[in-house]
């Protein structure tokens, strides 16, 4: 499960034409796999970037056109495109997603969104469902904070203390980005390239993204979903507990809820095979 450093992202084509466009550069969009296959888009959650999918995407390369990207502010996205007003709600990210799909001109897209990106996909599909064929929401939560009649799992104070943690870990975030030693002692240049990529995020943006992620309430957007939806939950997921997964399932008419043989919140990294199998089973 530990990651061998994969090919640098530059080896994948950045857009259909091979020339990165403004949108592709902004979101560091990489397209690989089967150019004639059905498009599948993977969107990462809070705290990481597109490398969160590196254990999952290989299984799709043969049959699918595989699209991964970084949200603005994360990974190798263009951080200068970050605007605090645009990204003060998940709608800003949903607009970016729609622009990426427009630019690649893909339809019948399978959208796989982890955690907060699950809701970003819901908002995008509600804005314009024409490009979406299926939504796969991996450990999603429409609201993290408890409300009357709704158990999100957290209180506002918890979120505030998490934001304190984020600030306390300011230096920690830098050290997380320290040189990557593992896996590639022979190819230090690869290590350096990945060091820049691995879940690096500007701390100010990380704090804002955390605020927007964990303080948003998108419950009312769920019943509006018309795209076929698969919800994947794990057991013992503290971030998106079972009650939340059930809630999402109940609110999206016709959705399918599958519990993965995995624990925690990040099955894309902790149980990639179970996640991959569940997606294939649903798409079959």
């Amino acid at each position, binding site marked *: *499960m*530990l*990651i*061998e450093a994969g090919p640098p992202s530059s080896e994948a084509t950045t857009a259909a034409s091979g020339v990165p466009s403004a949108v592709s550069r902004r979101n560091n969009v990489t397209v690989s796999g089967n150019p004639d296959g059905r498009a599948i888009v993977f969107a990462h959650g*809070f*705290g*990481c970037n597109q490398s*969160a999918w*590196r254990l999952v995407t290989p299984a799709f390369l043969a049959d699918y056109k595989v699209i991964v990207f970084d949200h603005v502010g994360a990974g190798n996205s263009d951080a200068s495109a970050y605007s*605090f*007003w*645009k990204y*003060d*709600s*998940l*709608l*800003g990210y949903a607009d970016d997603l729609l622009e990426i799909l427009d630019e690649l001109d893909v339809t019948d897209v399978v959208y796989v969104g982890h955690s907060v990106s699950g809701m970003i996909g819901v908002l995008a599909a509600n804005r314009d469902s024409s490009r979406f064929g299926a939504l796969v929401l991996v450990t999603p939560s429409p609201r*993290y904070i408890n409300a009357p009649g709704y158990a999100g*799992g*957290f*209180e506002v*104070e*918890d*979120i*505030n*203390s*998490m*934001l*304190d*943690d*984020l*600030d*306390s*870990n300011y*230096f*920690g975030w830098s*050290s*997380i980005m*320290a040189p*990557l030693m*593992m*896996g590639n002692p022979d190819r230090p240049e690869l290590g350096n390239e990945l060091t820049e990529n*691995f*879940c690096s995020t500007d701390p100010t943006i990380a704090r*804002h993204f955390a605020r*927007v992620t*964990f*303080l*948003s*309430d998108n419950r*009312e957007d769920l019943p509006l979903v018309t795209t076929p939806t698969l919800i994947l939950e794990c057991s*013992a997921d*503290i*971030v998106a507990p079972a009650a939340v997964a059930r809630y999402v399932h109940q609110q999206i008419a016709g959705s399918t809820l599958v519990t993965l043989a995995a*624990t*925690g*919140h*990040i099955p894309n*990294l*902790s149980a990639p095979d179970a996640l991959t199998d569940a997606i294939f089973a649903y798409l079959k």
Partner: protein
Amino acid sequence: MSDAGDRGVESIFEDLYEHAPCGHLSTTINGIIIRVNETLLKWTGYQREELVGQPFVSFLRPGSQLMFETRYLSVLHLRGEVKEVAVSFRHANGTALPMMVNSTVTTDGNGEPVTIRTAVFDASERQEYERELLAAQRKAEASETRIRVLQNASRVLTEATTDTALANQLTKITREAFAASNVSMYLLNAEGKLDLASGNPALGLLDLSGDGPARLLARPEGTMILSRADPLAKSSGLAEVMRGAQVETLVSVPLSEEASPLGVLISSFARSRSFEPDDIGLYEALARQSTQVLTRIHLLQQLERLTLIDPLTGLASRRLIQKRLSDAVTLSRLNHRSIALLLIDLDGFKLINDELGHATGDSVLSEVGSRLSSVVRHGDLVGRLGGDEFVVLCEDVTPDEVDRVVERLHATLRKPLTGRASQKRVTGSIGTILYLGGVPDHIPPDLILEQADEAMYRSKRAGKDQDTTVIVGDASPAEGHPVL
């Protein structure tokens, strides 16, 4: 001997592990605790059997759980190690234990991950002063940001010379300062309605003046913060409009100068937001700066209007004549309609001024002004260039119409004067320049004034109460009308 020796080494290592100067725990790759050392037990207050078999994350406080599950584990999985991450652990007695943790993933011979080893350091004191520093730093940053916004605002806003320019700057500054999804500024028009001056319409509403739900926003008594969930939003029907526009929170700030309303600044937020008193202070400071600039702009505009009117006669001033002439020339070039400029210089006025004084002279000028205005065509502009020189600008005019206007001007001037000057007479020397089919491109407006002036002098030289009309353009010259 060697067995005993090995046991000795083992027990040394065991002692080192159990009583190391830091807490230590091992978990499965899924985070289930499989081993803990004594140091950790002593420090956290738990029995070994309370920890082993449980997920490590379940002993963290909720805020740290979020951090751990999203950020920490992602990095740990991808990099194989995480260093010096601050988390908050729940002591057996319920209190918070601030920790710094380092984790590494151990792998088997095939590179498959097996366990996670975590070293735990007490960060209570460090965390306490860090939090204090953090609180102070945030406070300093927030106040620095506010000051920067205000300094920038006072520089940028005061540069505005029109309502629109001010509105554009204010909405931009506000949007950036508060990370609002939209900021719109409305200004009261002459009819007392609010017109959108900048930004996208708040909630998609162009006019806030009606009786609809938005009337709440239109005239707030003070800064109003409204969430979609507020009872007021629900009872007013605004909540539904907000839902449709994907707006969760609205802030409406009145713009008013000494209690008289000028407009309103409305910010929309796509997620539920709360505001500190300092934020509201910033809103109000921006509103105050803007109303000062608005007031200044309005005064300047008023002054501008004043300079366009001749205060003595109420006719157009030289400045307005030039402006309107220039506009008329431009238009005539487009629509190829004829325009004429008539310049009237009074005969006999100097005598009145000299013999009866300036006050009487002024009242004669005023009387002449209203007489001229009463005989021109509807829509003609009458102005006073200065002294006893008047002009009439006729757009879309025929030579015959010009003749008739000239005749009427002569006739009205010949009538006896009233008041102290009733024994005196004035007449007019009139010079007219008429461009048939519009003014050619090479003729500047100033030249037209000069041409009318020249024609007027020709009349003056010919004796008093005369007129000269110069016609430029494609038309057979009328009798007595020389063509240039």
